[in-house]
């Protein structure tokens, strides 16, 4: 080894090793998750034997049940139903929320009415909305959609509103001086400038959509993952509940991952700025 003292200590370590260490560092989140999951499994294995099986199944029972669930055709139907509900409800509520938020920020008159309205909607307990949905709508799909919509569109709307309000005034003046139409102003400046806010609203609202869809399915629809979970509950089938929960978690994380990926692509310029 060279005795040159001016060389940094890390120099003798090969580039590959350093890259590997950096990779581990970048995987810190994944590592943490893995440790937590391992700990939970260990605790489960340890305490599982001490508790009656119907209250909490052992790991092998749960795995066997999960495999059972995966072999049933009905499972995929239920997952499909829930997915369509979440994505459909999310698409409707997201587009409406963005439109609503932009209007709020661009028109004082609209904002005058819209803000108290949103505050009112958000102030009403979620359970009230589910029950109202059951009373108001006979159609199962409408019930679920209504519930998702009423809970998530205010989130997107308020985030969009904040995003539009945060557009730098200097950029507004510059764009305005180019004399775009209102649609052009939205397209060239306001929407792209507000997109970071809109995206965080969308991700929040998507995760709410997922939770709420299954909640509404359990109470008001009778089909989908939520209804299956409700059924396991009625049958004291804890292993089934765990299995379905696992499926739900996978579905929700896949959707969030998708949105995150879109967001990353969109924000190439922003990500590089941070580096």
């Amino acid at each position, binding site marked *: 080894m060279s005795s040159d003292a001016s060389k940094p200590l890390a120099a003798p370590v090969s580039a590959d090793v350093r890259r590997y260490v950096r990779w581990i560092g970048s995987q810190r989140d994944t590592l943490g998750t893995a440790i937590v999951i391992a700990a939970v499994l260990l605790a489960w294995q340890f305490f599982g034997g001490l508790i009656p099986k119907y209250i909490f199944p052992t790991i092998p029972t749960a795995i066997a049940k999960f495999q059972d669930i995966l072999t049933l055709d009905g499972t995929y139907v239920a997952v499909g139903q829930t997915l369509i509900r979440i994505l459909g409800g999310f698409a409707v509520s997201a587009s409406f929320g963005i439109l609503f938020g932009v209007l709020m920020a661009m028109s004082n008159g609209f904002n005058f009415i819209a803000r108290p309205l949103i505050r009112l909607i958000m102030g009403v307990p979620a359970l009230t909305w589910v029950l109202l949905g059951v009373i108001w709508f006979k159609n199962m799909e409408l019930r679920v959609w209504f519930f998702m919509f009423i809970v998530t569109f205010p989130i997107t709307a308020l985030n969009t509103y904040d995003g539009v309000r945060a557009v730098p005034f*200097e*950029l507004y*003046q*510059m*764009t*305005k*001086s*180019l*004399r*775009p139409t209102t649609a*052009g102003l939205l397209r*060239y*400046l306001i929407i*792209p*400038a507000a*997109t970071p806010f809109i995206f965080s609203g969308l991700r929040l609202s998507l995760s709410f959509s997922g939770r709420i869809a299954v909640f509404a399915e359990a109470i008001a629809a009778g089909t989908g993952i939520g209804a299956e979970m409700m059924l396991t509950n009625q049958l004291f089938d804890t292993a089934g509940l765990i299995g379905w929960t696992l499926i739900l978690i996978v579905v929700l994380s896949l959707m969030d991952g998708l949105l995150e990926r879109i967001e990353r692509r969109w924000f190439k*310029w*922003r990500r*590089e*700025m941070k580096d």
Partner: protein
Amino acid sequence: MVAVVDVQSVRKVFESGLDGNPFTAVKDVTFTVAAGEVVCICGKTGCGKSTLVNMLLGIDPPSEGTIRIDGLSPSADFMKMRGKLAAVFQTDRLLPWRNVIDNAAIGLEVAGAAKDDRYAQAKAWLAKVGLGGWEQAYPHQLSGGMRQRVAIARAFVTNPKVILLDEAFGHLDEVTAHKLRQDCMALINESQTAAIVVTHNITEALELGTRVLVLGRPARVISTHELVEIRKRPDWAIQRDQVRSDIFRNIESESFG
């Protein structure tokens, strides 16, 4: 010479100034600019120069008086003025999510030019400001001086009748500012645009202007200095120092204005 810019008795009162009362930012400004002229506007900070620029751009209408650019009112005939007016501001005001060429071409895009056409023109102007090869870069990848060059290309790309520079070189280091000033002037002369250059740098005004207007605070023209004739004289250097001290004295005399 026909005036491209005609500003008559313009006044701007903000309904609520800093203390909540009406605030007169521009008191009474009158001047004209012909094609090919470069009118420099000097004045103390806060005397209403940027307010005047905003009125010329049409994004803020005057409270009183009239502004005509190419015979039209920039605020009342707002949409008809598309592409005729351009500005370079103190900060680059580039859109961070657009790359260099899309930033430079935005004026043409707003005006509805076809993609090939606007890219070809933006590319040509970027080359003229010395940014050939940087088309795909994003603003955050450029230095402040380079970003300001993009802003200059963006201003020229629509072939405006009038170009407004509001402290466009103000926050660059002196060497960069000097170079950029010269390049920008060459483009103004080449395109025969009427130019209004706002600056509180008197040396810059004397270097660039065919005429210098000195504003009091709140804005009104307190003196006008024609430079075209005396710049041709052999004793220009001496004359320039004389004008500089005149301007300096005029601005000074406004300290309680």
